[in-house]
């Protein structure tokens, strides 16, 4: 009897392959939408068209990642939208200042990290439910954004707008970089600790995983991603707007759940979340090119979201039977 377990030659790759399980349905749906979109709008395949498309998707992809990160370790944030707004506002008021664009970038990064970490500290150490802490946080952050910039405005250097949201696929390249960074993060002890904490906090604690620290770190990273989404939105629009991010809260949750990320923690993958956000984004374009009137847009959106979740379930049930 051969007792030696099958140890795959490339353990990391084998694990990664397994994580695609259950997502193939979603991948197919997304691919179908992309193909339809490319047929309706062949310009998508040009550099300019692709750049514009990926720019519109990019901030949603970032906030979906931010939300999925929290949901994976058992949290959630209702302050995603306000924090996007705040990121945009901080960028727009600080880039015209003495420290310039770089100073503005640093300010956004610091704002995101600090607000995220503070939320994480409250949730992790005071053992308060994340959903309501971030609900309270959403009001506070909105208030701060309104104080900093009571009405849309501010200054973003044009070169930055051109660089990030011009006619080159910079946004897509950045997304790739962020995804690589995420993969690297997941390959650290903290990264897999994130899953363990979400799935089984007591077990993780007993295994020597620093549960509270990981919670705080994930809130901080999530805050950073969200604020960076705000920075990008500011660059894309050339300005700051204290309420621009509002709808990102629900959309980030929808993207993550659509991508198979569970609410109870530890279940789901970032690639699924990204695919979910891509579906939400490409759906808008496809519906436009199909000439849907508003009523149909609403109904189709509901059907697509439900369908993207239900069809894979049905397909697997059907296959089994």
């Amino acid at each position, binding site marked *: 009897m051969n007792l030696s377990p099958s140890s795959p030659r490339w353990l990391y790759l084998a694990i990664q392959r397994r994580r695609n399980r259950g997502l193939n349905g979603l991948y197919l749906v997304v691919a179908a939408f992309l193909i339809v979109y490319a047929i309706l709008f062949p310009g998508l395949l040009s550099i300019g068209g692709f750049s514009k498309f990926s720019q519109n998707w990019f901030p949603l992809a970032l906030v979906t990642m931010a939300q999925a990160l929290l949901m994976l370790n058992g949290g959630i944030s209702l302050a995603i939208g306000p924090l996007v707004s705040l990121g945009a506002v901080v960028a727009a008021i600080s880039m015209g200042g003495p420290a310039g664009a770089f100073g503005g970038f640093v300010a956004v990064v610091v704002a995101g990290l600090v607000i995220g970490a503070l939320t994480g500290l409250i949730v992790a150490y005071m053992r308060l439910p994340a959903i309501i802490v971030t609900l309270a946080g959403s009001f506070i952050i909105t208030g701060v954004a309104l104080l900093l910039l009571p009405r849309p405005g501010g200054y973003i250097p044009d070169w930055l707008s051109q660089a990030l949201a011009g006619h080159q696929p910079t946004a897509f390249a950045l997304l790739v970089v962020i995804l690589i960074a995420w993969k690297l993060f997941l390959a650290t002890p903290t990264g897999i600790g994130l899953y363990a904490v979400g799935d089984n906090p007591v077990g993780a604690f007993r295994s020597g995983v620093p549960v509270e620290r990981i919670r705080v770190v994930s809130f901080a990273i999530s805050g950073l991603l969200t604020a960076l989404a705000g920075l990008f939105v500011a660059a894309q629009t050339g300005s700051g*707007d204290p309420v621009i991010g509002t709808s990102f809260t629900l959309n980030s949750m929808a993207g993550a759940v659509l991508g198979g990320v569970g609410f109870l923690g530890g279940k789901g993958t970032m690639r699924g979340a990204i695919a979910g956000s891509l579906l939400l984004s490409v759906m808008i374009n496809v519906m436009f090119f199909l000439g849907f009137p508003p009523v149909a847009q609403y109904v189709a959106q509901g059907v697509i979201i439900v369908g993207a979740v239900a069809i894979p379930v049905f397909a697997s049930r059907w296959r089994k039977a």
Partner: protein
Amino acid sequence: NAAATCIKGDRKAPYTVGWANIYSVPTWMKQTEGTIADEVATLKKQGLVKDLMITDAQGNAQTQIQQIQSMVDANIDAIIVEAGSSTALNRVIADACAKGIAVVNFDSLVDTDKLTAKINTDSNEWGGAAAKWLVAQLNGKGKIVVMNGPAGVSVSDDRRKGAQPVLAANPGIEVITETNTEYNVAPAQEAITSLLFAHPDIDGVLSLGGALSAGSVMAFDRQGRAQVPTTGENARQFLELWKAKKLKGWATMQPNWLGALSVYAAVKALQGQDVPAFIKVPLPVIDDTSIDSYLAKAKDFPADGYIYSPYDQALFDKLLAQH
């Protein structure tokens, strides 16, 4: 005869027109869409317009950027914009303009000038006129509450800014407090009710939006307080309450036909006519002398809608001719 901004003269009728709406569900928008659809139907008959494409950004400025981008990608001829943010759309609108698309923006305006035309009443003037009327009603002395739209929105801010110099010039007028709510009846009613308990003496309500005024009037009524002079807009509910409660009222209007005018202006621009970069639509005033004429038409309008003044092509031509 110089062409309007953005227009390159390479687009031939019939045109495809896109309406990039920020949110199509509210009644004001629904009514506005009606005037746009009517105008498009008229222009279709004249062989000028081929198609109307409507997008609904569901209140999300980010989505609106994406939808306008799609309109640019689809290379339609004209884009009518109701903006979800005064700044967010600047770059995508400039892109559209660079492609020779006629971009006309109405009601909620963007900051950029890289578009064919902006059409609106003057929000500053709106606030100023309302404040002037209220000050006159109170003889320059009294405690008032100011009701604003949502925080962080330019229209609300502009109206408030317009009122400021008038209030500043009348030190006898004391602003007890201000509210910021969605332009809706229920939250306005709630806010004013709370204020009524806290302040036994409110002499006037400077409401800078129609549904807000209706909420305020109802709050006074439900708490059994005597009505005070109240400003507002042509919301049917406010006008009806004004009449029913016999209050001292004043209203102006943001006509829904700004939408129709935008389509008309875009088509004219595409045809080569020089359309002014800013088309200022005069603010009609509704007061005790004219309210009956508006209420007479009430049943043609939805209960939660706005009773707008009549319009026709002659009016549009006159507005387009101004410089």
